[in-house]
């Protein structure tokens, strides 16, 4: 198992190098001159040149690249030009916010989607099958900013059940000391239950928004793969052996049906992590997606590069976890490790 993990990590190195090169070139190729942007609209030509020199943008591309990789090797992702903060710190602060939101959203989604998919597959054509179809279609066809705003309108503005959608914590509470970066966990570690309540109530609406959106792929995939497995011959054997319906569905069908579902899960997770900019915007969530988009708009290279690199690493790690999970579930995969 350990050799397999090591091997997989080694395989990831070339792709990471590729990501570094491509992001570097891509950000250089983007329209917009950061020097001009920072000098401001009223700046003179000389002032722009001065800033350009200060940023090192007058050097040849190859030299800029080596300087960049050298910094990367030292854990220095550069400084954001807009905020002046080191990118590494910003990402370290913002990634947990996005991850916490995405994970919670995904957990809510899994808890609803998988039983829904399984039930729909075991009773095709029944009301629960139709419910599954309607829910997932509705969830995926409503844009997240719309569902987000709807939820805010309903639960904050109309009912007043949830707090103002303004970030991760109510302004009256201070952030817990960072252990994991997940407020829900950190507040519990700090035994600050009031803050935990606040963090949770801030999380519920955006997480629900994400969950509604990601229900569809998970539920549909669960239903489809359960249907395929239930029609298979080993399920028939299990039935013919008189095994109880629970054993047949859980031990025989569900475990086999999990394989494609896990793949879908990993895709949904990595997609949501970087792409839920709209949700982050609606709920003023200090996440990584909105950070990257803001940086991109202002031609701020360093955060964009840092973001892409972080996402690439996350993706590699996530794939590794999926492969390990696959190996745990399917012995045929284990053999090839």
């Amino acid at each position, binding site marked *: 198992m350990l050799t397999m993990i090591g*091997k997989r990590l*080694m395989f990831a190195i070339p792709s990471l190098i590729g990501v570094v090169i491509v992001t570097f070139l891509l950000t250089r190729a983007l329209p917009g001159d950061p020097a001009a942007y920072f000098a401001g609209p009223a700046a003179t030509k000389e002032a722009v040149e001065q800033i350009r020199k200060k940023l090192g943008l007058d050097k040849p591309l190859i030299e800029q690249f080596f300087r960049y990789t050298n910094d990367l090797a030292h854990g220095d992702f550069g400084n954001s030009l807009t905020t002046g903060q080191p990118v590494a710190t910003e990402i370290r602060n913002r990634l947990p916010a996005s991850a916490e939101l995405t994970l919670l959203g995904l957990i809510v989604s899994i808890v609803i989607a998988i039983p829904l998919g399984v039930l729909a597959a075991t009773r*095709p054509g029944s009301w629960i099958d139709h419910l599954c179809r309607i829910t997932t279609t509705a969830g995926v066809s409503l844009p997240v900013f719309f569902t987000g705003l709807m939820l805010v309108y309903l639960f904050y503005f109309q009912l007043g059940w949830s707090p103002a959608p303004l970030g991760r914590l109510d302004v009256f509470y201070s952030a817990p000391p960072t252990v994991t970066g997940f407020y829900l966990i950190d507040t519990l570690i700090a035994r600050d239950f009031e803050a935990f309540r606040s963090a949770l109530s801030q999380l519920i609406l955006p997480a629900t928004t994400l969950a509604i959106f990601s229900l569809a792929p998970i539920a549909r995939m669960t239903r489809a793969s359960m249907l395929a497995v239930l029609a*298979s*011959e*080993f399920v*028939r*054997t*299990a*039935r*013919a*052996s*008189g*095994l*109880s319906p629970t*054993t047949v569905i859980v*031990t*025989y069908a569900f*475990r*086999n049906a999990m394989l494609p579902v896990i793949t879908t899960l990993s895709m949904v997770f990595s997609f949501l992590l970087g792409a839920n900019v709209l949700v982050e915007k609606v709920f003023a969530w200090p996440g990584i997606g909105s950070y990257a988009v803001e940086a991109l708009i202002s031609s701020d290279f360093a955060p964009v590069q840092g973001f892409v690199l972080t996402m690439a690493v996350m993706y590699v790690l996530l794939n590794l976890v999926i492969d390990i999970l696959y190996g745990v*579930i*399917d*012995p*045929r995969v284990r053999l*090839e490790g």
Partner: protein
Amino acid sequence: MTARPLLEVQDLTVEFTTRRGIIKAVQHVNISVAKGETLAIVGESGSGKSVTSYAVMRILDRAGRIAEGSVMFSGIDVKAASEDQMRDLRGREVSMIFQNPRAALNPIRKVGDQIEDVLRTHVQQAQVADHGEKAIEALEQVKIVRPRERYHAYPFELSGGMCQRVVIALALACNPQLLIADEPTTGLDVTTQKAVMDLIVELTKRRAMSTILITHDLGLAAAYCDRVVVMEKGRVVETAKAADIFANPQHPYTRKLMRATPRLGVSLRDLLPEEEGALAAAPAEAAPAPTASAEKQPLLLIEKLVKEYPRQGATATLGKLFGRKPPVEPDVFRAVDGISFSIGHGESVGLVGESGCGKSTTSMMVMRLLDQTSGLIQFDGEDIGGIQPAAFARLPQRSRIQMVFQDPTDSLNPRFTAVRAIADPIMQLGDIRGRDALRTRCEELATMVGLPHNLLDRFPHQLSGGQKARVGIARAIALHPKLVILDEPTAALDVSVQAVVLNLLQDLKARLGMSYLFVSHDLNVVRLLCDRVIVMRTGRIVEEGASEKVLSDPQDDYTKELLTAIPHPPLQVH
């Protein structure tokens, strides 16, 4: 019958609700099985034999239901029983063995655990100290060596025959009174088939169990069963003692089935129904005799052909990449180990052997779908062995070697109509251009293979197995090939269809002067179609000679073993 039968099926009708309305898969079937009796239900696909057995266990699909009649199993009315009651019955009183053992086992669960699941369901904890021990015992009884180790094996780690033993162990774990074996040996090699059938008979006889054997193979039914029920299109057409039914078949369908079964001492024409056989015989005799010796040079010459596969997968390559030491054991596996043979013009040669003997690998190399490791492949005087598989597809030689595949369904593109499938090779390599000309040629070919022209515009799923086989053959002969490789072309077909297709192949060969390389595991079929037969085992040729001689007087022990493993009907049809 004096004693009350263990299973009594009376007037059973099973209906399926489909999009095209209600279909009666089984109609008014009466079957009874006495205690300790072995009954065979014989029929071709669609005869309702499997559906009958599913109805007995009440494991029909959602769409199917028992519409009429009754099923009584040792005093229990199966139709009226509650689902809980049925579940208790399944596996404990009645159990079932399925076709395709590997698919019948959960691929990601240890085989021991799967047996234990059944034990746990049916045997009270108090009665058995340890379910694990009991599962190992069950594995031991089906003669699996080292059962304690095999307990922890996954199905993919076991051979097909071994998997079927596990399925048998699973079925017999709780000592049921009735065992239903649904085509238990289809897809297994003959020697494995014999071992598995002997095992089933031995175990069930020892426990005084009743058995229902569902099969399409009359020989198998005759060799292992007391009584035979013949089914056709959902109805029972004949029920008789095994010995009687072969000596004196009453129903025309039974006679047709028996005629169509390939066996010793009959010719290809004998397989066809009486009236058709007489018709077909005339043109065949008029056809020119094979011109085997007319030309000196053989059409295909194979010398010292070797195909090696690396034993490890991607891991080994990776190891090398990072400078690891190569593994100590030899890292190649010889699938084909230096074989030599030749095929003359107009000759048909059978390549026989069990799965894994290298016969398919050989045919793939001749087709240039695979590159050989070493050796010579000479076709029509040209060395084609050196041509890269990828390049071969565009060369003119390609059109002279064609192939008919094993599975008539899977080898047709489901989105191509029959005419499109037949036209495909002509469009790739032929010289006929233009819609109408192509169509005319395809119709010509369809006539040759006996495919009605109105079926040409249908898609594969709208055709029967035999019709699909004809499309596959028409496609193969579309470019006037000199050599056709037939890879088990009839393995997926019913015996009566097989008889027709084999005769068709024989006629086409005589008419078009083609040579055949017939790859098969069925010695009886090979004997009918081939002049010469080559027996392969573990990549080597163990025996070679004229078909009649090899089959009537085998020299090699392995050939003898293969021949004795084939179940024979006790008597010949007159």
